[in-house]
Protein backbone atom coordinates (compact mmCIF):
# COMPACT_ATOMS: atom_id res chain seq x y z
CA UNK A 1 0.00 0.00 0.00
CA UNK A 2 1.24 3.47 -0.80
CA UNK A 3 1.03 6.27 1.73
CA UNK A 4 -1.79 8.08 -0.09
CA UNK A 5 -3.93 4.98 0.02
CA UNK A 6 -3.39 4.70 3.77
CA UNK A 7 -4.42 8.29 4.30
CA UNK A 8 -7.71 7.93 2.38
CA UNK A 9 -8.48 4.79 4.26
CA UNK A 10 -8.05 6.66 7.53
CA UNK A 11 -10.42 9.48 6.58
CA UNK A 12 -13.51 7.75 7.80
CA UNK A 13 -17.03 9.15 7.98
CA UNK A 14 -18.88 9.20 11.30
CA UNK A 15 -20.61 5.94 10.38
CA UNK A 16 -17.20 4.33 10.09
CA UNK A 17 -17.36 3.83 6.29
CA UNK A 18 -15.19 5.63 3.72
CA UNK A 19 -16.92 8.56 1.96
CA UNK A 20 -18.89 7.49 -1.11
CA UNK A 21 -17.46 9.20 -4.13
CA UNK A 22 -17.62 8.20 -7.77
CA UNK A 23 -14.54 6.13 -8.26
CA UNK A 24 -13.52 5.22 -11.79
CA UNK A 25 -11.42 2.32 -10.69
CA UNK A 26 -14.40 0.77 -9.00
CA UNK A 27 -16.83 1.32 -11.84
CA UNK A 28 -16.69 -2.07 -13.46
CA UNK A 29 -19.16 -1.13 -16.16
CA UNK A 30 -17.30 1.91 -17.40
CA UNK A 31 -13.97 0.18 -17.17
CA UNK A 32 -15.31 -2.72 -19.21
CA UNK A 33 -16.68 -0.43 -21.90
CA UNK A 34 -13.45 1.54 -22.13
CA UNK A 35 -11.33 -1.61 -22.33
CA UNK A 36 -13.54 -2.92 -25.12
CA UNK A 37 -13.25 0.38 -26.96
CA UNK A 38 -9.47 0.46 -26.65
CA UNK A 39 -9.28 -3.19 -27.70
CA UNK A 40 -11.31 -2.57 -30.83
CA UNK A 41 -9.15 0.43 -31.64
CA UNK A 42 -5.98 -1.69 -31.47
CA UNK A 43 -7.51 -4.57 -33.40
CA UNK A 44 -8.94 -2.30 -36.06
CA UNK A 45 -5.63 -0.54 -36.56
CA UNK A 46 -3.85 -3.89 -36.90
CA UNK A 47 -6.52 -5.23 -39.24
CA UNK A 48 -6.14 -2.17 -41.43
CA UNK A 49 -2.40 -2.76 -41.68
CA UNK A 50 -3.04 -6.36 -42.68
CA UNK A 51 -5.94 -5.86 -45.08
CA UNK A 52 -4.98 -2.66 -46.94
CA UNK A 53 -2.48 -4.42 -49.26
CA UNK A 54 -5.23 -6.82 -50.34
CA UNK A 55 -7.68 -4.01 -51.02
CA UNK A 56 -4.98 -2.12 -52.89
CA UNK A 57 -4.21 -5.20 -54.97
CA UNK A 58 -7.87 -5.71 -55.89
CA UNK A 59 -8.41 -2.03 -56.58
CA UNK A 60 -5.35 -1.72 -58.80
CA UNK A 61 -6.27 -4.87 -60.72
CA UNK A 62 -9.48 -3.19 -61.90
CA UNK A 63 -8.06 0.18 -62.89
CA UNK A 64 -7.29 1.65 -66.28
CA UNK A 65 -3.51 1.62 -66.72
CA UNK A 66 -3.25 5.42 -66.60
CA UNK A 67 -5.24 5.68 -63.38
CA UNK A 68 -2.47 4.04 -61.32
CA UNK A 69 -0.45 7.24 -61.58
CA UNK A 70 -3.12 9.56 -60.20
CA UNK A 71 -2.81 11.61 -57.03
CA UNK A 72 -4.47 11.18 -54.64
CA UNK A 73 -4.75 7.43 -55.32
CA UNK A 74 -8.16 6.09 -56.31
CA UNK A 75 -9.51 3.43 -53.99
CA UNK A 76 -12.59 2.66 -56.05
CA UNK A 77 -11.56 2.27 -59.67
CA UNK A 78 -13.31 4.56 -62.12
CA UNK A 79 -13.85 3.19 -64.71
CA UNK A 80 -13.79 -0.47 -63.62
CA UNK A 81 -11.64 -2.33 -66.17
CA UNK A 82 -12.50 -6.03 -66.05
CA UNK A 83 -10.54 -6.42 -69.27
CA UNK A 84 -7.30 -6.47 -67.21
CA UNK A 85 -8.03 -10.06 -66.23
CA UNK A 86 -8.35 -11.55 -69.73
CA UNK A 87 -5.42 -9.36 -70.84
CA UNK A 88 -3.25 -10.76 -68.09
CA UNK A 89 -4.44 -14.32 -68.65
CA UNK A 90 -3.62 -14.20 -72.36
CA UNK A 91 -0.32 -12.34 -72.11
CA UNK A 92 1.39 -15.59 -71.08
CA UNK A 93 0.08 -19.17 -71.12
CA UNK A 94 -1.67 -18.79 -67.77
CA UNK A 95 -3.98 -21.65 -68.63
CA UNK A 96 -1.13 -24.11 -68.44
CA UNK A 97 0.40 -22.34 -65.42
CA UNK A 98 -2.86 -22.83 -63.59
CA UNK A 99 -3.25 -26.48 -64.60
CA UNK A 100 0.38 -27.21 -63.70
CA UNK A 101 -0.14 -25.71 -60.24
CA UNK A 102 -3.32 -27.73 -59.73
CA UNK A 103 -1.62 -30.94 -60.85
CA UNK A 104 1.52 -30.49 -58.74
CA UNK A 105 -0.31 -29.33 -55.60
CA UNK A 106 -2.81 -32.19 -55.83
CA UNK A 107 -0.07 -34.81 -56.23
CA UNK A 108 1.82 -33.31 -53.28
CA UNK A 109 -1.27 -33.44 -51.12
CA UNK A 110 -2.03 -37.05 -52.01
CA UNK A 111 1.60 -38.06 -51.41
CA UNK A 112 1.88 -36.37 -48.04
CA UNK A 113 -1.48 -37.61 -46.72
CA UNK A 114 -0.71 -41.16 -47.77
CA UNK A 115 2.86 -41.51 -46.57
CA UNK A 116 2.74 -39.28 -43.48
CA UNK A 117 -0.34 -41.06 -42.15
CA UNK A 118 1.39 -44.41 -42.64
CA UNK A 119 4.47 -43.23 -40.79
CA UNK A 120 2.47 -41.54 -38.05
CA UNK A 121 0.47 -44.74 -37.52
CA UNK A 122 3.59 -46.82 -37.08
CA UNK A 123 5.15 -44.33 -34.65
CA UNK A 124 2.07 -43.92 -32.49
CA UNK A 125 0.45 -47.38 -32.51
CA UNK A 126 3.00 -50.11 -33.10
CA UNK A 127 5.77 -51.23 -30.84
CA UNK A 128 9.06 -52.36 -32.32
CA UNK A 129 12.75 -52.09 -31.67
CA UNK A 130 14.34 -48.79 -32.70
CA UNK A 131 11.02 -46.95 -33.02
CA UNK A 132 11.84 -44.04 -30.73
CA UNK A 133 15.31 -43.54 -32.18
CA UNK A 134 13.90 -43.50 -35.70
CA UNK A 135 11.24 -40.98 -34.73
CA UNK A 136 13.80 -38.73 -33.07
CA UNK A 137 15.96 -38.90 -36.21
CA UNK A 138 12.96 -37.87 -38.28
CA UNK A 139 12.22 -34.90 -36.02
CA UNK A 140 15.88 -33.85 -36.11
CA UNK A 141 15.58 -33.32 -39.87
CA UNK A 142 13.33 -30.32 -39.13
CA UNK A 143 16.46 -28.44 -38.11
CA UNK A 144 18.24 -28.94 -41.44
CA UNK A 145 17.83 -25.83 -43.59
CA UNK A 146 16.29 -26.52 -46.95
CA UNK A 147 19.30 -25.02 -48.74
CA UNK A 148 21.58 -27.77 -47.42
CA UNK A 149 19.66 -30.61 -49.03
CA UNK A 150 18.70 -28.56 -52.08
CA UNK A 151 22.06 -28.73 -53.88
CA UNK A 152 22.72 -32.49 -53.60
CA UNK A 153 19.08 -33.20 -54.43
CA UNK A 154 19.33 -30.99 -57.50
CA UNK A 155 22.48 -32.79 -58.62
CA UNK A 156 20.83 -36.17 -58.08
CA UNK A 157 17.76 -35.18 -60.11
CA UNK A 158 19.90 -33.69 -62.87
CA UNK A 159 21.96 -36.91 -63.10
CA UNK A 160 18.84 -39.05 -63.56
CA UNK A 161 17.45 -36.60 -66.11
CA UNK A 162 14.56 -35.21 -64.08
CA UNK A 163 15.53 -31.55 -64.37
CA UNK A 164 13.17 -29.91 -66.82
CA UNK A 165 10.29 -32.21 -65.83
CA UNK A 166 7.66 -31.93 -63.10
CA UNK A 167 8.91 -35.04 -61.31
CA UNK A 168 11.20 -33.24 -58.78
CA UNK A 169 8.24 -31.07 -57.81
CA UNK A 170 6.01 -33.87 -56.56
CA UNK A 171 7.86 -37.19 -56.18
CA UNK A 172 9.52 -36.12 -52.87
CA UNK A 173 6.04 -35.66 -51.38
CA UNK A 174 5.69 -39.45 -51.54
CA UNK A 175 8.52 -40.10 -49.13
CA UNK A 176 6.87 -38.76 -46.00
CA UNK A 177 8.31 -35.92 -44.03
CA UNK A 178 8.90 -34.78 -40.48
CA UNK A 179 6.25 -32.07 -40.29
CA UNK A 180 3.32 -34.10 -41.59
CA UNK A 181 4.26 -37.25 -39.70
CA UNK A 182 4.65 -35.28 -36.47
CA UNK A 183 1.34 -33.46 -36.93
CA UNK A 184 -0.63 -36.66 -37.56
CA UNK A 185 1.14 -38.55 -34.82
CA UNK A 186 0.11 -35.85 -32.32
CA UNK A 187 -3.47 -36.54 -33.30
CA UNK A 188 -3.17 -40.35 -33.38
CA UNK A 189 -1.81 -40.27 -29.83
CA UNK A 190 -5.15 -38.91 -28.64
CA UNK A 191 -7.02 -41.97 -30.01
CA UNK A 192 -7.27 -44.57 -27.20
CA UNK A 193 -5.17 -47.63 -27.88
CA UNK A 194 -7.99 -49.83 -26.51
CA UNK A 195 -9.78 -49.42 -29.84
CA UNK A 196 -6.90 -50.94 -31.76
CA UNK A 197 -6.45 -53.67 -29.15
CA UNK A 198 -10.06 -54.77 -29.22
CA UNK A 199 -10.12 -54.68 -33.02
CA UNK A 200 -7.14 -56.97 -32.95
CA UNK A 201 -8.96 -59.35 -30.59
CA UNK A 202 -11.65 -59.54 -33.24
CA UNK A 203 -9.05 -60.56 -35.80
CA UNK A 204 -8.26 -57.27 -37.56
CA UNK A 205 -4.76 -57.01 -39.01
CA UNK A 206 -2.55 -53.92 -38.88
CA UNK A 207 -3.67 -52.62 -42.24
CA UNK A 208 -7.32 -52.91 -41.24
CA UNK A 209 -6.74 -51.12 -37.94
CA UNK A 210 -5.11 -48.29 -39.85
CA UNK A 211 -7.67 -48.14 -42.62
CA UNK A 212 -10.86 -48.56 -40.60
CA UNK A 213 -10.00 -46.95 -37.25
CA UNK A 214 -7.19 -44.42 -37.56
CA UNK A 215 -7.89 -42.96 -40.98
CA UNK A 216 -11.60 -42.28 -40.38
CA UNK A 217 -11.03 -40.96 -36.86
CA UNK A 218 -8.32 -38.53 -37.85
CA UNK A 219 -10.21 -36.64 -40.54
CA UNK A 220 -9.74 -33.18 -38.94
CA UNK A 221 -5.97 -33.66 -38.70
CA UNK A 222 -5.81 -35.07 -42.22
CA UNK A 223 -7.79 -32.08 -43.46
CA UNK A 224 -5.35 -29.72 -41.75
CA UNK A 225 -2.30 -31.45 -43.22
CA UNK A 226 -3.94 -31.69 -46.65
CA UNK A 227 -4.73 -27.99 -46.70
CA UNK A 228 -1.25 -26.99 -45.52
CA UNK A 229 0.45 -29.20 -48.08
CA UNK A 230 -1.71 -27.93 -50.91
CA UNK A 231 -1.08 -24.34 -49.86
CA UNK A 232 2.70 -24.71 -49.54
CA UNK A 233 2.96 -26.50 -52.81
CA UNK A 234 0.74 -23.95 -54.55
CA UNK A 235 2.80 -21.07 -53.18
CA UNK A 236 6.26 -22.61 -53.66
CA UNK A 237 8.66 -20.58 -55.79
CA UNK A 238 12.14 -21.98 -55.19
CA UNK A 239 11.61 -25.50 -56.53
CA UNK A 240 9.84 -24.55 -59.77
CA UNK A 241 12.47 -21.83 -60.22
CA UNK A 242 15.25 -24.39 -60.12
CA UNK A 243 13.68 -27.36 -61.86
CA UNK A 244 11.53 -26.08 -64.73
CA UNK A 245 12.35 -23.55 -67.42
CA UNK A 246 10.07 -24.19 -70.40
CA UNK A 247 7.17 -21.77 -70.54
CA UNK A 248 4.41 -24.39 -70.68
CA UNK A 249 5.83 -26.19 -67.63
CA UNK A 250 5.77 -23.23 -65.26
CA UNK A 251 3.51 -23.07 -62.22
CA UNK A 252 1.45 -20.05 -61.29
CA UNK A 253 4.02 -18.62 -58.85
CA UNK A 254 6.98 -18.88 -61.19
CA UNK A 255 4.77 -17.77 -64.05
CA UNK A 256 3.89 -14.68 -62.07
CA UNK A 257 7.54 -13.92 -61.42
CA UNK A 258 8.20 -14.44 -65.14
CA UNK A 259 5.36 -12.03 -65.85
CA UNK A 260 6.98 -9.49 -63.54
CA UNK A 261 10.21 -9.69 -65.57
CA UNK A 262 8.41 -9.16 -68.87
CA UNK A 263 5.73 -6.67 -67.94
CA UNK A 264 7.40 -4.84 -65.05
CA UNK A 265 5.66 -1.54 -64.37
CA UNK A 266 2.28 -2.72 -65.73
CA UNK A 267 0.86 -2.80 -62.24
CA UNK A 268 -2.76 -3.31 -63.25
CA UNK A 269 -1.98 -6.58 -65.00
CA UNK A 270 0.43 -7.74 -62.32
CA UNK A 271 -2.14 -7.15 -59.60
CA UNK A 272 -4.71 -9.08 -61.63
CA UNK A 273 -2.21 -11.94 -61.74
CA UNK A 274 -1.66 -11.70 -58.00
CA UNK A 275 -5.40 -11.85 -57.35
CA UNK A 276 -5.76 -14.93 -59.54
CA UNK A 277 -2.91 -16.74 -57.81
CA UNK A 278 -4.21 -15.96 -54.31
CA UNK A 279 -7.89 -16.60 -54.96
CA UNK A 280 -8.05 -20.43 -55.01
CA UNK A 281 -6.31 -20.77 -51.64
CA UNK A 282 -8.37 -17.93 -50.19
CA UNK A 283 -11.58 -19.70 -51.17
CA UNK A 284 -10.38 -22.91 -49.52
CA UNK A 285 -9.40 -20.89 -46.47
CA UNK A 286 -12.82 -19.31 -46.06
CA UNK A 287 -14.55 -22.68 -46.15
CA UNK A 288 -12.03 -24.61 -44.10
CA UNK A 289 -10.78 -21.99 -41.68
CA UNK A 290 -11.39 -24.32 -38.75
CA UNK A 291 -8.86 -26.83 -40.08
CA UNK A 292 -6.19 -24.22 -40.74
CA UNK A 293 -6.42 -23.02 -37.19
CA UNK A 294 -6.58 -26.52 -35.72
CA UNK A 295 -3.55 -27.49 -37.75
CA UNK A 296 -1.45 -24.66 -36.38
CA UNK A 297 -2.59 -25.33 -32.84
CA UNK A 298 -2.05 -29.08 -33.25
CA UNK A 299 1.47 -28.83 -34.58
CA UNK A 300 2.51 -26.17 -32.14
CA UNK A 301 0.95 -26.39 -28.76
CA UNK A 302 1.05 -29.97 -27.60
CA UNK A 303 4.37 -31.05 -26.28
Amino acid at each position, binding site marked *: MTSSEISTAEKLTPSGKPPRKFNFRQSRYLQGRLTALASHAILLFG*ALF*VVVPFIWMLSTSLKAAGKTFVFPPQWIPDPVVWQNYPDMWNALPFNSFFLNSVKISTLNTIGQLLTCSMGAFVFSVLK*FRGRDALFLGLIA*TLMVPYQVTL*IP*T*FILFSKIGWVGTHLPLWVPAFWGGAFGTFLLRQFYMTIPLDLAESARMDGANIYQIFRYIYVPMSKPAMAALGIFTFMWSWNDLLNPLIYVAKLDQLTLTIG*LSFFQNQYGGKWTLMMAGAVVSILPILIVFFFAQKYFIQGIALSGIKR
Partner: protein
Amino acid sequence: MNGGLRLKKGERFWLWIFLAPTIVGLLIGSLGPVLAAVGISFTDWDVITPPTFAGLGNYQRLSADPTFAKAIRNTAYYVGVMVPVSTVLALLLAMVLNQKLRAVTWYRTAYFLPVVSSTVAVSLVWSWMYAKDFGLLNFLLRSVGLEPVAWLTSTQWAMPAIIIMGIWGTLGQGMIIFLAGLQAIAPSYYEAAEVDGANALQRFWRITVPLITPSLFFYFIVTMIDAFQTFESIYIMTRGGPVNSTTTMVYYIYRNAFRNFKMGYASAQAIVLFLIIMVLTLIYWRMQEKWVVYDD
Protein backbone atom coordinates in the same frame (compact mmCIF):
# COMPACT_ATOMS: atom_id res chain seq x y z
CA MET B 1 6.14 -43.44 -25.82
CA ASN B 2 6.11 -46.93 -24.37
CA GLY B 3 2.62 -48.05 -25.29
CA GLY B 4 1.75 -49.74 -28.52
CA LEU B 5 0.71 -52.96 -30.15
CA ARG B 6 3.31 -55.68 -30.29
CA LEU B 7 3.73 -57.20 -33.70
CA LYS B 8 2.44 -60.70 -34.31
CA LYS B 9 4.06 -63.20 -36.63
CA GLY B 10 3.66 -62.23 -40.25
CA GLU B 11 2.98 -58.61 -39.44
CA ARG B 12 6.56 -57.50 -40.06
CA PHE B 13 5.52 -57.23 -43.69
CA TRP B 14 3.00 -54.48 -42.89
CA LEU B 15 5.48 -52.70 -40.67
CA TRP B 16 7.96 -52.44 -43.55
CA ILE B 17 5.29 -51.30 -45.99
CA PHE B 18 4.19 -48.56 -43.62
CA LEU B 19 7.71 -47.47 -42.81
CA ALA B 20 9.14 -47.64 -46.33
CA PRO B 21 8.31 -44.07 -47.43
CA THR B 22 9.66 -42.58 -44.22
CA ILE B 23 12.90 -44.55 -44.44
CA VAL B 24 13.38 -43.71 -48.12
CA GLY B 25 12.73 -40.05 -47.26
CA LEU B 26 15.24 -40.11 -44.42
CA LEU B 27 17.90 -41.67 -46.63
CA ILE B 28 17.33 -39.96 -50.00
CA GLY B 29 15.66 -36.78 -48.74
CA SER B 30 17.70 -35.91 -45.64
CA LEU B 31 20.60 -38.00 -44.43
CA GLY B 32 22.10 -38.66 -47.87
CA PRO B 33 21.88 -35.05 -49.05
CA VAL B 34 23.33 -33.68 -45.79
CA LEU B 35 26.34 -35.98 -46.06
CA ALA B 36 26.62 -35.24 -49.78
CA ALA B 37 26.50 -31.50 -49.09
CA VAL B 38 29.44 -31.86 -46.71
CA GLY B 39 31.30 -33.82 -49.37
CA ILE B 40 30.47 -31.39 -52.19
CA SER B 41 31.64 -28.47 -50.04
CA PHE B 42 35.18 -29.86 -50.35
CA THR B 43 35.05 -29.79 -54.15
CA ASP B 44 34.79 -27.42 -57.07
CA TRP B 45 31.84 -28.57 -59.15
CA ASP B 46 29.75 -26.97 -61.88
CA VAL B 47 27.63 -30.19 -62.35
CA ILE B 48 28.60 -30.42 -66.05
CA THR B 49 32.28 -31.29 -65.74
CA PRO B 50 33.45 -33.78 -63.08
CA PRO B 51 34.12 -32.35 -59.61
CA THR B 52 37.68 -31.61 -58.53
CA PHE B 53 38.82 -31.93 -54.93
CA ALA B 54 39.39 -28.53 -53.34
CA GLY B 55 40.06 -29.45 -49.72
CA LEU B 56 39.20 -26.58 -47.44
CA GLY B 57 39.54 -24.14 -50.34
CA ASN B 58 35.87 -23.16 -50.37
CA TYR B 59 35.86 -22.46 -46.65
CA GLN B 60 39.00 -20.36 -46.95
CA ARG B 61 37.43 -18.39 -49.77
CA LEU B 62 34.31 -17.89 -47.68
CA SER B 63 36.20 -16.35 -44.82
CA ALA B 64 37.72 -13.79 -47.20
CA ASP B 65 34.55 -13.09 -49.23
CA PRO B 66 33.19 -9.64 -48.31
CA THR B 67 29.81 -10.44 -49.91
CA PHE B 68 29.43 -13.50 -47.67
CA ALA B 69 30.28 -11.41 -44.60
CA LYS B 70 27.70 -8.90 -45.77
CA ALA B 71 25.16 -11.70 -46.29
CA ILE B 72 25.70 -12.86 -42.68
CA ARG B 73 25.20 -9.31 -41.40
CA ASN B 74 22.07 -8.88 -43.52
CA THR B 75 20.66 -12.18 -42.30
CA ALA B 76 21.33 -11.19 -38.68
CA TYR B 77 19.63 -7.85 -39.33
CA TYR B 78 16.58 -9.48 -40.87
CA VAL B 79 16.20 -12.24 -38.26
CA GLY B 80 17.17 -10.02 -35.34
CA VAL B 81 14.54 -7.40 -36.06
CA MET B 82 11.77 -9.38 -37.72
CA VAL B 83 11.44 -12.22 -35.19
CA PRO B 84 11.26 -10.21 -31.92
CA VAL B 85 8.97 -7.54 -33.38
CA SER B 86 6.65 -10.13 -34.88
CA THR B 87 6.57 -12.03 -31.58
CA VAL B 88 5.72 -8.98 -29.47
CA LEU B 89 3.07 -7.67 -31.86
CA ALA B 90 1.45 -11.09 -32.30
CA LEU B 91 1.33 -11.60 -28.52
CA LEU B 92 -0.21 -8.17 -28.03
CA LEU B 93 -2.86 -8.88 -30.65
CA ALA B 94 -3.62 -12.29 -29.20
CA MET B 95 -4.06 -10.81 -25.72
CA VAL B 96 -6.43 -8.16 -27.01
CA LEU B 97 -8.33 -10.80 -28.98
CA ASN B 98 -8.56 -13.11 -25.98
CA GLN B 99 -11.57 -11.31 -24.51
CA LYS B 100 -15.28 -11.53 -24.93
CA LEU B 101 -15.44 -9.07 -27.80
CA ARG B 102 -17.71 -8.76 -30.78
CA ALA B 103 -16.39 -9.62 -34.22
CA VAL B 104 -13.47 -11.68 -32.89
CA THR B 105 -13.74 -14.21 -35.72
CA TRP B 106 -13.67 -11.40 -38.28
CA TYR B 107 -10.43 -10.06 -36.89
CA ARG B 108 -8.96 -13.53 -36.76
CA THR B 109 -9.83 -14.15 -40.41
CA ALA B 110 -8.37 -10.79 -41.44
CA TYR B 111 -5.08 -11.36 -39.63
CA PHE B 112 -4.75 -14.78 -41.15
CA LEU B 113 -5.08 -13.64 -44.77
CA PRO B 114 -1.36 -13.00 -45.39
CA VAL B 115 -0.45 -16.41 -43.96
CA VAL B 116 -2.39 -18.26 -46.66
CA SER B 117 -1.49 -15.97 -49.53
CA SER B 118 1.31 -16.79 -51.92
CA THR B 119 4.47 -14.90 -50.98
CA VAL B 120 5.16 -14.19 -54.65
CA ALA B 121 1.79 -12.50 -55.08
CA VAL B 122 1.99 -10.44 -51.90
CA SER B 123 5.59 -9.48 -52.70
CA LEU B 124 4.34 -8.04 -55.98
CA VAL B 125 1.69 -6.09 -54.09
CA TRP B 126 4.25 -4.75 -51.63
CA SER B 127 6.62 -3.81 -54.47
CA TRP B 128 3.80 -1.77 -55.89
CA MET B 129 3.04 -0.14 -52.54
CA TYR B 130 6.74 0.60 -52.04
CA ALA B 131 7.09 2.13 -55.53
CA LYS B 132 8.98 5.40 -55.28
CA ASP B 133 6.84 7.75 -57.35
CA PHE B 134 3.28 6.47 -57.28
CA GLY B 135 3.38 3.96 -54.44
CA LEU B 136 0.77 4.02 -51.72
CA LEU B 137 3.26 4.34 -48.86
CA ASN B 138 4.99 7.38 -50.23
CA PHE B 139 1.59 8.94 -50.84
CA LEU B 140 0.80 8.42 -47.15
CA LEU B 141 4.18 9.86 -46.14
CA ARG B 142 3.65 12.91 -48.31
CA SER B 143 0.14 13.46 -47.04
CA VAL B 144 1.43 13.76 -43.46
CA GLY B 145 4.19 16.10 -44.63
CA LEU B 146 7.12 13.66 -44.64
CA GLU B 147 9.71 13.14 -47.35
CA PRO B 148 9.04 10.17 -49.65
CA VAL B 149 11.44 7.24 -49.34
CA ALA B 150 13.03 5.22 -52.14
CA TRP B 151 12.03 2.02 -50.34
CA LEU B 152 13.32 -0.81 -52.49
CA THR B 153 15.97 1.11 -54.38
CA SER B 154 17.95 2.58 -51.49
CA THR B 155 20.55 0.62 -49.58
CA GLN B 156 19.26 2.10 -46.35
CA TRP B 157 15.56 1.28 -46.71
CA ALA B 158 15.43 -1.93 -48.78
CA MET B 159 16.01 -4.22 -45.79
CA PRO B 160 13.52 -2.45 -43.49
CA ALA B 161 10.99 -2.68 -46.33
CA ILE B 162 11.46 -6.43 -46.55
CA ILE B 163 11.31 -6.75 -42.76
CA ILE B 164 8.01 -4.87 -42.62
CA MET B 165 6.52 -7.26 -45.14
CA GLY B 166 7.93 -10.20 -43.18
CA ILE B 167 6.24 -9.02 -40.00
CA TRP B 168 3.01 -8.43 -41.87
CA GLY B 169 3.14 -11.97 -43.22
CA THR B 170 3.76 -13.74 -39.91
CA LEU B 171 1.47 -11.83 -37.51
CA GLY B 172 -1.52 -14.09 -38.14
CA GLN B 173 0.32 -17.32 -37.46
CA GLY B 174 1.75 -16.00 -34.20
CA MET B 175 -1.62 -14.70 -33.16
CA ILE B 176 -3.25 -18.13 -33.60
CA ILE B 177 -0.47 -19.88 -31.66
CA PHE B 178 -0.59 -17.37 -28.81
CA LEU B 179 -4.37 -17.35 -28.71
CA ALA B 180 -4.38 -21.12 -28.27
CA GLY B 181 -1.76 -20.73 -25.50
CA LEU B 182 -3.72 -18.01 -23.73
CA GLN B 183 -6.94 -19.96 -23.87
CA ALA B 184 -5.21 -22.89 -22.22
CA ILE B 185 -4.47 -20.84 -19.08
CA ALA B 186 -7.00 -21.77 -16.39
CA PRO B 187 -9.17 -18.76 -15.42
CA SER B 188 -8.78 -19.77 -11.77
CA TYR B 189 -5.25 -18.30 -11.75
CA TYR B 190 -6.57 -14.89 -12.66
CA GLU B 191 -9.47 -15.15 -10.22
CA ALA B 192 -7.17 -16.04 -7.37
CA ALA B 193 -4.79 -13.21 -8.26
CA GLU B 194 -7.64 -10.74 -8.34
CA VAL B 195 -8.85 -11.86 -4.93
CA ASP B 196 -5.31 -11.26 -3.66
CA GLY B 197 -5.44 -7.74 -5.11
CA ALA B 198 -3.03 -8.11 -8.02
CA ASN B 199 -3.42 -5.36 -10.63
CA ALA B 200 -3.54 -5.88 -14.39
CA LEU B 201 0.19 -5.37 -14.85
CA GLN B 202 1.05 -7.83 -12.11
CA ARG B 203 -1.36 -10.38 -13.53
CA PHE B 204 0.33 -9.98 -16.93
CA TRP B 205 3.89 -10.44 -15.68
CA ARG B 206 3.24 -13.07 -13.03
CA ILE B 207 0.59 -15.24 -14.69
CA THR B 208 0.23 -14.60 -18.42
CA VAL B 209 3.90 -14.35 -19.32
CA PRO B 210 5.14 -17.43 -17.44
CA LEU B 211 2.26 -19.59 -18.63
CA ILE B 212 2.56 -18.48 -22.25
CA THR B 213 6.30 -19.32 -22.38
CA PRO B 214 5.77 -22.72 -24.10
CA SER B 215 3.96 -21.01 -27.01
CA LEU B 216 6.44 -18.16 -26.95
CA PHE B 217 9.31 -20.60 -27.16
CA PHE B 218 7.72 -22.56 -29.97
CA TYR B 219 6.80 -19.51 -32.04
CA PHE B 220 10.17 -17.87 -31.58
CA ILE B 221 12.12 -20.91 -32.71
CA VAL B 222 9.87 -21.74 -35.69
CA THR B 223 9.83 -18.14 -36.89
CA MET B 224 13.57 -17.84 -36.44
CA ILE B 225 14.32 -20.93 -38.53
CA ASP B 226 11.85 -19.67 -41.16
CA ALA B 227 13.33 -16.18 -41.13
CA PHE B 228 16.81 -17.56 -41.76
CA GLN B 229 15.45 -19.15 -44.93
CA THR B 230 13.50 -16.18 -46.32
CA PHE B 231 13.94 -16.25 -50.05
CA GLU B 232 10.82 -15.45 -52.04
CA SER B 233 10.20 -11.89 -50.88
CA ILE B 234 13.82 -11.00 -51.58
CA TYR B 235 13.79 -12.69 -54.97
CA ILE B 236 10.67 -10.82 -56.09
CA MET B 237 11.25 -7.43 -54.48
CA THR B 238 14.98 -6.72 -54.74
CA ARG B 239 16.95 -9.72 -56.12
CA GLY B 240 19.34 -9.10 -53.26
CA GLY B 241 20.03 -5.50 -54.20
CA PRO B 242 20.62 -2.64 -54.25
CA VAL B 243 24.37 -3.24 -53.90
CA ASN B 244 23.79 -6.49 -51.98
CA SER B 245 21.98 -4.64 -49.21
CA THR B 246 19.32 -7.38 -49.08
CA THR B 247 21.51 -10.33 -50.04
CA THR B 248 20.95 -12.80 -47.23
CA MET B 249 22.84 -16.07 -46.79
CA VAL B 250 20.06 -18.02 -48.41
CA TYR B 251 19.90 -15.67 -51.36
CA TYR B 252 23.66 -15.78 -51.80
CA ILE B 253 23.57 -19.57 -51.72
CA TYR B 254 20.90 -19.56 -54.42
CA ARG B 255 22.93 -17.17 -56.56
CA ASN B 256 26.12 -19.18 -56.28
CA ALA B 257 24.48 -22.54 -56.85
CA PHE B 258 21.86 -21.84 -59.48
CA ARG B 259 23.08 -18.71 -61.24
CA ASN B 260 26.85 -19.27 -61.20
CA PHE B 261 26.77 -23.07 -60.79
CA LYS B 262 29.46 -23.06 -58.12
CA MET B 263 28.02 -26.05 -56.26
CA GLY B 264 31.01 -26.57 -53.99
CA TYR B 265 31.19 -22.97 -52.88
CA ALA B 266 27.40 -22.78 -52.36
CA SER B 267 27.44 -26.03 -50.36
CA ALA B 268 30.13 -24.67 -48.05
CA GLN B 269 27.89 -21.68 -47.40
CA ALA B 270 24.90 -23.93 -46.78
CA ILE B 271 26.92 -25.91 -44.24
CA VAL B 272 27.87 -22.69 -42.43
CA LEU B 273 24.20 -21.70 -42.39
CA PHE B 274 23.29 -25.12 -41.00
CA LEU B 275 25.87 -24.79 -38.22
CA ILE B 276 24.64 -21.33 -37.27
CA ILE B 277 21.03 -22.50 -37.08
CA MET B 278 22.04 -25.60 -35.13
CA VAL B 279 24.09 -23.68 -32.57
CA LEU B 280 21.30 -21.11 -32.08
CA THR B 281 18.72 -23.87 -31.69
CA LEU B 282 20.85 -25.69 -29.13
CA ILE B 283 21.50 -22.52 -27.11
CA TYR B 284 17.83 -21.79 -27.24
CA TRP B 285 16.93 -25.31 -26.15
CA ARG B 286 19.23 -24.95 -23.16
CA MET B 287 17.68 -21.63 -22.23
CA GLN B 288 14.24 -23.15 -22.48
CA GLU B 289 14.95 -25.38 -19.49
CA LYS B 290 15.58 -22.27 -17.43
CA TRP B 291 12.66 -20.07 -18.34
CA VAL B 292 9.88 -22.07 -19.91
CA VAL B 293 7.16 -22.88 -17.40
CA TYR B 294 5.03 -25.96 -18.04
CA ASP B 295 1.72 -25.87 -16.25
CA ASP B 296 1.23 -29.44 -15.03
